[in-house]
């Protein structure tokens, strides 16, 4: 086959049954991984705001242990700072992601780099925020129990945490770290792993060309 001889047929080809979608409502049904990532980031930000409203409502409702209330408040502020830092970074990426008007080599490099970096930041964010969230939840629940009752359960006679309680907190932190690590890796791999591998293959093909 000589493809130069096909140019006339190519120019005449109107690609038959294809129709252009100029209905903007349909454009929301994107299949691009970059757009999906943007959508997910937006949804997570909204969910986070809703969570904060709910958590603060629960925190101020029916406080029985002022000590745990204070601890929860401090931990919530820590979480807020972590969330603010990461979501600010996500926002910067959100604004600059997926520029398709560059040359193919630049555009694909940019998409691959952004997607990889974003997923790594996302994993780090969850790895640092989720265990702290678990501990905050524990102290939040503890703030709803009378301090004297709690005192008998978790403290020894000299006011220190009992061995069982220390063990419980330690195990909870370790388990939440492990679960977070496994879930995050699984989520990122299933959502973006194949796509990233595909883009890296394109990068390799481009590398061979240049």
């Amino acid at each position, binding site marked *: 086959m000589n*493809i130069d001889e096909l140019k006339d047929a190519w120019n005449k*080809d109107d690609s038959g049954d294809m129709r*252009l*979608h100029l209905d903007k409502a349909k*454009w929301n049904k994107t*299949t*691009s991984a970059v757009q999906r990532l943007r959508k997910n980031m937006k949804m997570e930000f909204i969910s986070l705001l809703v969570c904060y409203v709910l958590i603060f409502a629960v925190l101020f409702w029916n406080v029985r242990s002022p000590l745990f209330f204070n601890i929860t408040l401090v931990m919530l502020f820590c979480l807020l700072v972590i969330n603010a830092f990461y979501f600010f970074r996500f926002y910067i990426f959100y604004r600059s992601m997926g520029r398709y008007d560059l040359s*193919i080599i630049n555009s*694909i490099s940019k998409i691959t780099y952004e997607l990889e970096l974003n997923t790594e930041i996302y994993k780090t964010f969850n790895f640092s925020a989720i265990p702290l969230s678990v501990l905050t939840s524990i102290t939040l629940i503890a703030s709803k129990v009378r301090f004297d009752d709690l005192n008998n359960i978790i403290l020894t006679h000299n006011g220190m945490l009992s061995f069982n309680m220390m063990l419980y907190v330690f195990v909870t932190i370790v388990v939440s770290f492990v679960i977070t690590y496994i879930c995050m890796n699984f989520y990122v791999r299933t959502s973006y792993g194949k796509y990233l591998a595909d883009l890296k293959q*394109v990068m390799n093909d481009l590398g061979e060309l240049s």
Partner: protein
Amino acid sequence: MTVNPKEAEFLRQIESNKGILFKICRIYQDNAEDRDDLLQEMTLQLWLAYDSFRSESKFSSWMYRVALNTAIAFFKKQKRRPDDQSLPYEFDRAEELSRVNEEEEKLAMFYKAVHQLDKIEKALIYLYMENQSYEEIATHLGITAVNARVKMSRLKDKLKEITKKMNYEYR
């Protein structure tokens, strides 16, 4: 529903250059539903990137770039469809050949062969078929014109091999 002037101009430009999108879809996807998804995705990306279009350059040149980048970065939906399993080539080809003359038959064969290339090779073939010069191809791809010429020459041989193999297998 009112359409603002920017949107109206965009839609007009897209409509008059839709052939570019159709052919890219045909080159990159062999399944009608995937072609439709890609077409939708390209239209969306063109609209999102429309602010970056400078009217001193040709709309079609800008469109090649955005559409090709979208096609290369496009990832098929993972859902399983009844037509996910490729039909035996004889059925597929018979359907295509029933409505075509010899020239179109060759073009259909050409598309079949191109589907076996990687995404970058498809971009190269597409731009070549659109009569883009090697300098223009090199600019779109971000490589040198010499590399584009060498790669194109190899690709022509590769396509010959593929079509030869296809004829042998399906005759």
